[in-house]
């Protein structure tokens, strides 16, 4: 059976409980669900953030996330996988991204969720612009993000 896979790029918020329920409903083979929720912070590098605006590359965002979802399904015995990434204007405290992984055991669920988040951060075509009292500025990529993604590359 193919792994139930949901990928959505959307402006609206998501409902974590509903996404978990959609993955697990009627399944007796899932023993572990891991969720990662990325949230807009109100402070970054010591300055206040009023809001983020997320720009994305429509079409490529879905394709790129889809490739990594397929890779995760090949590497780990997943029973379900949901990835939702928001775009548009997002205020502090609001959700940005959700990854839900389901598996029989915890190891696969944890590993797949970390892998997907590392890859999303480094490779998914999204760009954050930060609004603050100082005006607006594009967020710079964190130095560690490429390294985090690279640790999953097979030697």
């Amino acid at each position, binding site marked *: 059976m193919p792994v139930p896979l949901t990928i959505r790029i959307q402006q609206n918020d998501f409902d974590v409980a509903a996404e978990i329920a959609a993955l697990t409903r009627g399944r007796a083979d899932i023993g572990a669900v891991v969720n990662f929720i*990325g949230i807009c912070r109100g402070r970054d590098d010591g300055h206040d953030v009023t809001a983020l605006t*997320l*720009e*994305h*590359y429509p*079409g*490529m*965002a879905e*394709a*790129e996330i889809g490739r990594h979802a397929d890779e995760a399904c090949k590497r780990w015995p997943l029973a379900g996988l949901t990835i939702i*990434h928001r775009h548009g204007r997002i205020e502090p405290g609001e959700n*940005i*991204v959700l990854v839900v992984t389901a598996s029989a055991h915890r190891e696969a669920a944890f590993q797949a969720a970390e892998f997907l*988040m590392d890859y*999303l*951060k*480094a*490779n*998914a*075509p*999204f*760009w*954050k*612009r930060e609004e603050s009292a100082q005006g607006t500025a*594009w*967020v*710079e*990529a964190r130095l560690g993000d490429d390294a985090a993604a690279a640790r999953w590359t097979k030697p």
Partner: protein
Amino acid sequence: MKIVYFAWVRERIGKAEEMLDPPPAVRTIGDLIGWLAGRGEEYAQAFAAPRSIRAAIDRTHVKPETAIAGAREIAFFPPMTGG
């Protein structure tokens, strides 16, 4: 071919996309960046630091040395900051 720009690359160039027909000597993504940088002040600014520019051909990440032959859509953008 269609060239698309995102984030500060888009802002500096002042447009989100355009149709361009680079000369045959422009073979790779790196060549294309050099050619685009010569198209005017706004392009020169957008491509001033080529190492900060990422590229995709037909919605797949590519490297500066990748050939552009056959590409329908080439995108330029800064390092990704999603997630």
